Each structure stands twice: as C-alpha cells, then as structure tokens.
C-alpha cells in the first residue's frame, strides 16, 4: 500500500489509541473520582481562592449559563481594546500597528467563540503580547468553556432527576489544569524540538544563497500551535497557518497536530457514555460520527489524489495528486485527511489552502462544517449532536405514536421547539449571510471599503460564489478555515461574520444546555417495553437520516450553485 495512505490510517489509529483512554480519564475527572493528576488539586484550590470562587457551590442550568456568558463577555470587552491599542503596548518587536475597530471586533469575537477566523495575518497584524495575552489565552479558555458546557449537559443525565448540576467554575478550571494545559505543554515541547520557534526573538534577516535579502518572522509560536489544535481553535501564529514550515516542520509534527485536534472531541463522546453510565449509547454515537467522517473523507482523498483535470490536460504528470496550495513534505493524501478533519471538528487550522482544492473537495469541506457534529469542536461537538438526537427522538416518537423520551425523560413541546430553533439557525445565518454578501458584491461593487466589493473574490465564476459561501459557513460553524482568496478584511466581512460567529456559538450552547437542564429536572420514567431505545442500530440509522435530510434540504441549492456547478463545468 502506498505510504501516503498508510500515513492516514496510522494517524487515525494513533488518535483512537490516545482518545479512548483520555475519555475514560475525563469521565473520572469530572465525576470527582480519584485520578493520577490529583496532585494538581492545590493549584486548583489556589486558583479558586484567588478568584473568590467556592467550587462546592452547586448551580442549576440557568446559573451555569449566566456564569458562562458573563466570563465570555469580560473577555470580549478586554480583548477588543487590547487589540486596538496593541501598538502602544509592550512586546511588539516587529512594530506592528493596532487593529482597526472593525477588525478588532471581528478578531476578538472570533477567538472568544473558539473559531479563530483570521482577517489579519499573524506576521504583521498582531504583536507577541496580543498573540499570548489575548489570542492564546482565549484558545485555552474558549475550549474550556465548550468542555465545561458539555459537562453540565452530562450532569443533567447522570442521575434520575437532577436540578443541581455542579459548579461551572470547577468544570472550567479543571478542563484547563487537568487536560488542556498539560497536553499543550508536552506537545509544545515536541514541536519546539522539531524546529518550531519558541523564543521571544523578533524578526531576523539574512542574505540568501543567491544574494537576496530575506526577512523572517518568528516568535514564541510553539505553545500557541499546541493549544490551537488541542482546543480545536485553529488560528495560526503565521498567516498561512499549519502549512507554514515553522508552524508545522515535518510529517511527524503534522501527525501530532492532526492527532491533537481530534482526541478531545472523541474523548468527550467516550466520557459522556461513562459519565452517564450508558457506554453503549456513547459507542453508537461514536459509530454514527465515524461513519459520517468516513463518508466525507474517502471522496475527499480520492478527489485530491486524482489531481487537477485541467492540469492533466496540459500533459503534466500528477502521479502524486493535486499540488496547488499544498506542501511537498505532507503530500496530497494527508492534506486531504487534514481538510476533512479540520472541517468536521471546527478546528479550522489548515495545512493546505482550501481555496485551491478540487471542486468536490470544497463540497465535502463545506458539508463537514454545515453538519458540524461528526466529532465536532471541543465540547460543543457533543452538544450539536444532541440537537440532532432530540429531533430524531421526536420524529421517531411521532412515527411510532408514542410520547418521545430521551434517557427516561419526556421530551415535550418546549424542548423540541428549542431544538428546532437551533436547527434552523444555521441555515438562516449561512444562507442569509451569503445572500447579502452576494447582493453587496453585485450591486455595490464600488463601495469605499478597505477592499472594494468588486475586488473581494480571488476567482471568477462559481468558485467566487463558493468563497463567500465558505466564509459564512465557516463563521457559523465557528470553524475558522477559509477560502482565503476572499478579500475579507473590510468593514462588511468583519462586522457580518462577527455577528454570525456570536450567534453561531452561543445559541447552540444555550439551546442544548437548556434542553438538558429542563429534561434533567423532569420526573424519571423507568424503562418499559414501550420505551424508544436510543442505543440501538435502528436509532443510529434514524439519527443519521435526520442529519442527512436536514442538511441536504437546507444546503443543496447553495452547494449546487458553488462547488457542484464548478465541478460539472470542469468535466466539459
């Protein structure tokens, strides 16, 4: 078998080898059982003490959401101003300027919501201070926010009836001290030893072999790159993210970065099953997610390995596949795998330029982000999947004529309404957003913005439309990757995607936590012959069908105008 395909299999295998035990460990950590990292308890107590937090104080779901939203608001306000005035603050060896208000608005939201859409370029748009004290800080805490929200959801189903769901600050702090920080530390050091810069030295200059003067951007990137993957954030230290040789020096680091972004999302599913004492349910969920992932992955790899048919016509050998926007040290196969993983998991880091991938690859990338729950982001993947589950429970309940139940709790009108609203939110934001962008592009081409609308698109025709669709989809999914040809650093895209990001993050957290909180507080109905079992193959198929039908109905027209139209034009 060829070494590039073997690389994919080994990477996924290594992911499972780490993720499954990690899931077991997380279930114990959040249940407060004994684990080997308990030696960190004094540090956690210190953190609670200094912050005036009583970690034993139990909260109901509303209090959890209040705490979550409050601390996120604090980060938004703080970061907005620091980014705008970064030029006047220390640790700016390259003398980079402050951000414009609209760019700062977009950037801070994007990092608070765990998206890391970047309308600036890392080399010239931020300083070492903001890279660390705003962006990297948020990469840790936004991931921890997602994980803590998921644990609140776990708590609601652990016992028969529960109103008190633990302490939000405790879940949040433990996500950092027991999971994100230790793993990041190990990974950052491995990266540093493979060539990723870690020191605070500024730009360097050298004269090349042919006599050109070359400036080199550097900086303490290793720590940033570790958490950007572990926390499924995805924002790069450098402009081109993990295709940059300093950010991702070789095939080994590429494997590590790939494994790192998938382990926590998978571990959360495993942890869910153990935590609520229904392991079979977790494996069924994992199975559906994995099949979904494979259905996106296989055609992606095949379309990239096939190469660009337009270049094949010129007579160039594409034995290794499509290479535009890709790096030789990775090759097209693992780059295709990366593009699937980063879009289904909301990481949004890239090791190849998605704008230059084949049309059908673009289709699978978009679909991955639209579905957004085949594993999904840190914590929020499980929450997104839960919404599909509730819809599936509701529809199956109607089909067999029984009151729908989930894990012993009646699912009633209120919960289904919330789930339906959250389901409708994504297509609304993506399609309305793209439509407005398309309208501005066609009718207000001359608007005097930093990038004039007529110059937004880097590619003509259907592909240009895909660039706009991708940007909105990526924002809604809190993904952060892009068809980077889009001229997005201007007031329209900064503000529009800013709002899409906010709504696309917090409503899909509030919704599932609310549903879980409501369900958890209801009377427990013991299982009987009439109970709809949610951990069976039939129900798995049902959920899968719900996911496919909902997304196909919502997005097929838009996808037909973009990647599909481009694909069929190229066949001619």
């Amino acid at each position: 078998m060829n070494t590039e395909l073997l690389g994919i299999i080994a990477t996924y295998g290594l992911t499972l080898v780490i993720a499954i035990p990690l899931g077991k460990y997380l279930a114990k950590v959040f249940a407060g059982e004994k684990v080997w990292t308990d030696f960190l308890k004094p540090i956690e107590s210190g953190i609670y003490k200094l912050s005036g937090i009583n970690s034993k104080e139990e909260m109901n779901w509303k209090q959890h959401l209040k705490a979550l939203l409050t601390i996120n608001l604090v980060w938004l306000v703080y970061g907005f101003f620091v980014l705008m005035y970064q030029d006047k603050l220390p640790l700016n060896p390259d003398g980079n300027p402050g951000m414009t208000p609209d760019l700062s608005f977009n950037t801070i939201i994007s990092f608070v919501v765990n998206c890391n859409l970047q309308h600036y370029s890392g080399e010239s748009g931020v300083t070492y201070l903001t890279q660390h004290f705003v962006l990297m800080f948020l990469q840790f805490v936004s991931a921890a926010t997602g994980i803590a929200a998921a644990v609140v959801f776990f708590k609601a189903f652990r016992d028969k009836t529960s109103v008190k769901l633990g302490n939000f600050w405790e879940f949040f702090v433990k996500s950092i001290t027991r999971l994100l920080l230790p793993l990041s530390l190990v990974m950052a050091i491995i990266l540093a030893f493979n060539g990723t810069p870690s020191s605070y030295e500024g730009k360097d200059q050298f004269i090349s072999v042919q006599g050109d003067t070359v400036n080199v951007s550097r900086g303490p990137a290793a720590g940033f790159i570790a958490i950007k993957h572990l926390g499924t954030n995805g924002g790069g230290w450098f402009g081109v993210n993990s295709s940059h040789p300093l950010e991702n020096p070789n095939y080994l680091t590429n494997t590590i970065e790939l494994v790192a972004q998938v382990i926590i999302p998978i571990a959360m599913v495993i942890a869910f099953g153990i935590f609520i004492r229904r392991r079979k349910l977790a494996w069924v969920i994992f199975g559906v997610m994995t099949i979904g992932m494979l259905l996106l992955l296989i055609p992606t790899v095949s379309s990239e390995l096939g190469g660009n048919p337009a270049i094949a016509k010129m007579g160039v050998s594409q034995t290794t596949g499509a290479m535009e926007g890709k790096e030789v040290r990775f090759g097209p196969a693992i780059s295709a795998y990366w593009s699937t993983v980063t879009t289904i998991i909301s990481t949004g880091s890239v090791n190849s330029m998605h704008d230059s991938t084949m049309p059908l690859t673009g289709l699978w990338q978009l679909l991955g982000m639209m579905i957004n729950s085949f594993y999904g982001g840190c914590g929020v993947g499980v929450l997104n999947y839960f919404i599909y589950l509730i819809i599936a429970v509701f529809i199956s309940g109607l089909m067999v004529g029984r009151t729908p139940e989930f894990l012993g709790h009646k699912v009633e009108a209120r919960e289904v309404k919330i789930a339906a609203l959250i389901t409708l939110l994504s297509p609304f934001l993506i399609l309305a957003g793209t439509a407005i962008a398309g309208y501005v592009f066609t009718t207000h081409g001359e608007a005097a913005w930093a990038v004039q609308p007529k110059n937004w698109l880097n590619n003509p025709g259907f592909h240009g439309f895909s660039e706009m669709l991708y940007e909105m989809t990526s924002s809604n999914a809190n993904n952060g990757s892009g068809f980077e040809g889009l001229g997005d650093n201007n007031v329209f895209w900064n503000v529009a995607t800013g709002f899409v990001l906010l709504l696309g993050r917090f409503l899909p957290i509030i919704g599932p936590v609310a549903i879980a909180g409501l369900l958890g507080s209801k009377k427990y109905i013991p299982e009987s012959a009439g109970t709809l079992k949610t951990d069976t193959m039939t129900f798995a198929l049902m959920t899968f069908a719900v996911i496919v039908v909902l997304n196909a109905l919502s997005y097929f027209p838009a996808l037909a105008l973009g990647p599909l139209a481009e694909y069929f034009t190229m066949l001619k």
Partner: protein
Amino acid sequence: MKKYILQSIRLTAVLMVLLCVVYPLVVAFAGGFSKGKGGGEKLTKNGKVVGYALLGQSFTKPEYFWGRPSAVGYNAAGSGGSNKGPSNPDYLQQVSDRIDTLLKYNQTIKKADIPADMVTASGSGLDPNISEQGAIIQIKRIAAVRQLDERTVAELVVKNTQGPLLGMFGPTSVNVLKLNLALDALKQ
C-alpha cells in the same frame, strides 16, 4: 450577577499568569535546548548564515536546483498561497507558462516528466521541498551548467532525499536549500 462579574475578572487575571506567562516561558526554556535554540535552525555557507533549514528560498539561476513556484516570492515575513481555484483560467494560463519555462531550461525533458509540484505554488509560499522527480528532471541542466558528471549530481540528489517517516508513512521529499549548499560545497 455582580458576583459572577467579579469572579470572572479575578479568574481571568489568575489564569493569565498561568497560561500567558508561566506556560510560554516554560516552553521557551525547553525550546532553548533544541537545535536552533528556539529561534529556528539556520544553515551557513563559509561561516555566513544563508538561510533557515525549514524555509524555502528563491532559486532562479540555472546552476541551482529550483524550488516550487511561490505566490509571495518566498517572503518569509509574509507567507501566503495563491488561493487560485482549480478552474480559474488566469491560473491555468500561469501553470502553462511555468511548464514552458521548465521545458525551455531543461531541454532534455518531456512534459510528462514534469511533476505537478514544480508548476504549482505551495500553500505557504515557503515550501522548502520539491519531490524527488522534481529534482531528477533538473539533474541534466545542472550537470551541464556546472560541468559536472551527471552521476555526481544524481548521487547528491539521492543523498539529500528524505524518505517517508519511519520508511512507512508519508511522501518522499528533497530539501532544495540543503541540496544546493551541497552542490556549492562540491566545487571547493
């Protein structure tokens, strides 16, 4: 509500010390023991730094192995890909021109010998590598310009070819800068 605001602010401050000061400093300290001392590994020629091992640089002279096309002219302070879509007509014209240039400078090769990586821009614009085939098609030109034996040049290519990880995973690649430095070292 007020309680949550105060707790949020204090928790943010405490975590900042841990995550933004302690964590990167520990990484920086550990990175100090790596090959490039945390600043990136540099390569030298006659004692002078001529580049970074991991960063590709522009080679246009016929006596050097060329790297891949770069959308940003190998600007290591402003990385970038072309972001050209696969069906973009301007882009396809550009690829076609690159094929012609390669054929012009390497008259012994055929179109079908040219691997895709030599006519497409990399994602970072700083790709330090080319494929093995990308180096092989340039051997005859280099040998002729430098008046070297083809076999000597071919041996250098083999020596500077990096196989798959552990011999099993991933592609084969050639580091252009290292290969060219090895070429220059031959003369002396």
